[in-house]
């Protein structure tokens, strides 16, 4: 923090006619009613020099003391005069300056406005972000000054929008008209609210027309972002559904085990991620940002191991009796939930996103794609490709397909079917673990994690057509996008209900899912 301040003072652009901080200004900012203090502060900010900035910064950091009508800036246990900068003895009775909340936010805004003039592009960017929706007319000269000096086009545009937003509140009709014209080029959702607010209070007819035209233009340019945003979040939800359902597509789709513990296998993956995170925090804090890379294989192995144990101990006795596997795996899921509660407690645990996953890419004014969503989409694609390769191209995949299609013949050919069952189940479980690892980055990690996704997982697999990988992909993406579009006009819960009802109706029409198996095997 300190370093940044120093940098800021050093790079501050100082206007030519700025005059030095005077003792009167200091007293105006420090003493009196909050309103008059704010006024003095804004006035000083307009013609700020290095010392003014340092003083405002010190005030904002609570490093200013007063004694009588004398003002001291305290730094490293030494007191300095804010105007001359000379060191002074700090009297015993010096008191802290009290900044009410209003004063505090004004200080922040003034600092941000001053940073608009900084030579460092990053600081200017931050300052624009901080000021954002603040449309105080007193700040107009400063913004115009910054706008004139700005060289980066994107920032210049943003400054122009800020200027227009402030002008919109001006008492001069011509200025308001100008502002409406300027704002119509905006692609920022905040502009829309500003325009709508102003429309409510605007009295002049011409300005009103101009405002409405601007609003229509802004809305039109926002519509694209809204649509793309819905599609993106649909794909993002779809990729999560896909991850959740892929493992089930093996254990249920291929092997016929109604695995109600699928959600708990995901939960194990999520907790494995949590444990890896904890280990990194403790032993490798330097490499903490990369804990997720280590967590992925750990989550896979933890769930796969658990899956193998379950298959060997319970599920292999129940092949061919799908409804009994439902009961037994439900029992397993209850026990796993309690196990996690006993070990980690009933509360949700915190899993942090690595730094490289926070933030996002700004594509349009109202469309930014968060990195964690992008990473999960990529991850889902990778898992899908990996699984497709494993099932379609490897010896293990060949055996799995052979055993599920015709067990006796596969057995005759010398395939150890029992072992293949274990491998296949462990693979499905491991993929559930990968899903859990991904979910830990976007949702809560707690003992109930699995319960929240189990219905979704089954819906996707059934809708896609049991035993059909491609169907699972289409179903997941379709449901994700459908859900997000419905959310647009009904809200999240009603959209979810609508999707469930649509699935129920769809299954009436096509009981075997999108991709029904054809031929004699369809009924079996």
């Amino acid at each position, binding site marked *: 923090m300190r370093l940044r301040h120093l940098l800021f003072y050093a790079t501050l652009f100082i206007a030519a006619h700025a005059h030095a901080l005077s003792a009167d200004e200091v007293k105006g900012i420090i003493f009196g009613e909050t309103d008059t203090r704010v006024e003095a502060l804004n006035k000083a900010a307009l013609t700020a020099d290095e010392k003014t900035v340092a003083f405002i910064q010190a005030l904002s950091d609570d490093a200013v003391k007063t004694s009588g009508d004398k003002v001291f800036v305290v730094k490293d246990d030494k007191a300095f005069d804010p105007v001359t900068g000379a060191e002074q003895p700090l009297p015993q009775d010096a008191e802290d300056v009290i900044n009410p909340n209003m004063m505090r936010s004004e200080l922040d805004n003034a600092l941000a406005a001053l940073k608009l003039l900084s030579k460092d592009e990053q600081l200017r960017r931050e300052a624009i972000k901080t000021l954002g929706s603040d449309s105080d007319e007193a700040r107009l000269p400063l913004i115009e000054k910054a706008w004139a000096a700005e060289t980066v086009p994107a920032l210049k545009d943003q400054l122009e929008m800020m200027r227009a937003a402030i002008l919109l509140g001006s008492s001069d009709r011509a200025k308001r008209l100008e502002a409406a014209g300027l704002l119509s080029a905006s692609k920022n959702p905040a502009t829309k609210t500003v325009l709508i607010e102003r429309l409510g209070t605007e009295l002049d007819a011409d300005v009103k027309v101009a405002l409405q035209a601007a609003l229509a233009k802004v809305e039109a340019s926002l519509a694209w972002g809204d649509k793309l945003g819905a599609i993106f979040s649909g794909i993002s939800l779809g990729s999560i559904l896909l991850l959740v359902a892929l493992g089930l597509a093996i254990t249920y789709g291929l*092997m016929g085990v109604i695995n109600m513990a699928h959600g708990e296998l995901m939960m194990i993956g999520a907790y494995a991620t949590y444990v890896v995170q904890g280990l990194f925090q403790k032993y490798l804090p330097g490499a903490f940002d990369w804990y997720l890379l280590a967590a992925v294989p750990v989550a896979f192995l933890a769930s796969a191991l658990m899956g193998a144990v379950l298959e060997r101990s319970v599920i292999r006795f129940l092949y061919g009796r*799908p409804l009994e596997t*439902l009961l037994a795996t*439900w*029992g397993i899921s209850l026990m796993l939930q309690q196990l996690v509660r006993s070990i980690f407690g009933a509360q949700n645990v915190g899993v942090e996103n690595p730094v490289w996953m926070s933030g996002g890419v700004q594509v349009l004014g109202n469309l930014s794609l968060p990195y964690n969503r992008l990473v999960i989409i990529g991850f889902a694609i990778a898992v899908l490709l990996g699984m497709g390769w494993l099932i379609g191209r490897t010896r293990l995949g060949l055996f799995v397909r052979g055993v*599920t299609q015709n067990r006796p013949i596969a057995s005759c050919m010398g395939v150890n079917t029992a072992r293949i069952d274990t491998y296949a189940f462990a693979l499905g479980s491991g993929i559930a673990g990968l899903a859990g690892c991904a979910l830990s980055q976007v949702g809560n990690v707690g003992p109930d994690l699995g319960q929240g996704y189990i219905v979704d997982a*089954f819906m996707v697999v059934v809708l896609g057509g049991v035993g059909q990988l491609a169907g699972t992909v289409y179903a997941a993406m379709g449901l994700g996008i459908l859900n997000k579009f419905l959310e647009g006009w009904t809200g999240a819960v009603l959209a979810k209900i609508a999707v469930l009802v649509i*699935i129920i109706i769809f299954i009436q029409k096509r*009981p075997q899912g999108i991709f029904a198996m054809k031929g004699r095997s369809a009924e079996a």
Partner: protein
Amino acid sequence: MSTPFPTINDSLLAEQGTDLAPKVPAQARPPAPSSPGRVELPGKGPLLTRSGWSAFVIALIVVCAVAPVLNLWVPEGHALHLSTYAVALLGKIMCYAICALAMDLIWGYTGILSLGHGVFFALGGYTMGMYLMRQIGADGNYKSNLPDFMVFLDWKELPWHWTFSDSFVATLILIVAVPGIVAFVFGYFAFRSRIKGVYFSIITQAMTFAAMLLFFRNETGFGGNNGFTDFKRILDIPIATPSMRMTLFVMTGLTLLGFFLFAKWLVGSKFGRVLQAIRDAETRVMFSGYSPLGYKLTIWVISAVMCGVAGALYVPQVGIINPGEMSPANSIEIAIWAAVGGRASLIGPIVGAFIVNGAKSWLTVAYPEFWLYFLGALFIGVTLFLPNGVVGLVKKLRKGAEQ
């Protein structure tokens, strides 16, 4: 769907979802289920055997005489006194037993596993709850004629679906009609398009999940996630008095016994035999000239109505109904009771409901950490080792003793 053991016999069983466990390993089973000696003709009517008759009478006496006497007239502190807590618990479990019985009709006897029976239970419960909410009158926290949650939401009048909630007679009709109609509509479409086995189970689960989400919403008019509670009276009689509790208890017991007799009659009738035929080989039933749709739909609606009645009896005794009753987990638990007791036997599910819920109320108090382990282990153990449930085990032991 794949059939890991693709003998004709097994694939048929798997397809039907009939998991009445084979008593012999799959490979050793005779090839055709119709071979002589395997056809079981229905036994005598429920009350015609001496043991059946006497067991029924004993159950009737326990419910109608022993429990009330022990609770109301034996003084507190006496060794034989039945506490109010115990009465409430028994009443609650009997409601669950009705659900288990209903589940057995549709699952054990017809081979259709429903994972959505919680919806029908809750619909019956909510219908009763609406009447009870109206019975509170202006005695609620806000002293308004409207239920408290509506005042809280700033509603001025009752929504349309509360129209009949004032009348007890209408409520009694709706308790049967609402779950019945919902089940009919859902079942008609599902059975018509020949959804069966696992698919049916999963869409019923989707149904209960959707219903739960819907009832969690405030604007649906069912009290949101708090549901209904704070009931004061029923038929203008205070609900918390010992005699009222006892009346509800006895009514529940009689309902359970009545449904038991009804189910016994049903499964022994020709209708019941067709159901079992559908369970064992639906395709063959169709080839024999029967249309399974009507049979499945009828038993599905009957089963749903039984659950609805159970819910209506449950709510005044427990004093609360909320959307949690519709969670998929609750519906699965109903199936568990039936499985633990033993499917395809009528007494089994009732026994199962008592065992599981008895253990639940004991374990959740004594070893709260332990309850889920126990329940989970019970599910696994029963499916692995007791495919015919406790009743099957008893039968086996008895047979062993005879030899």
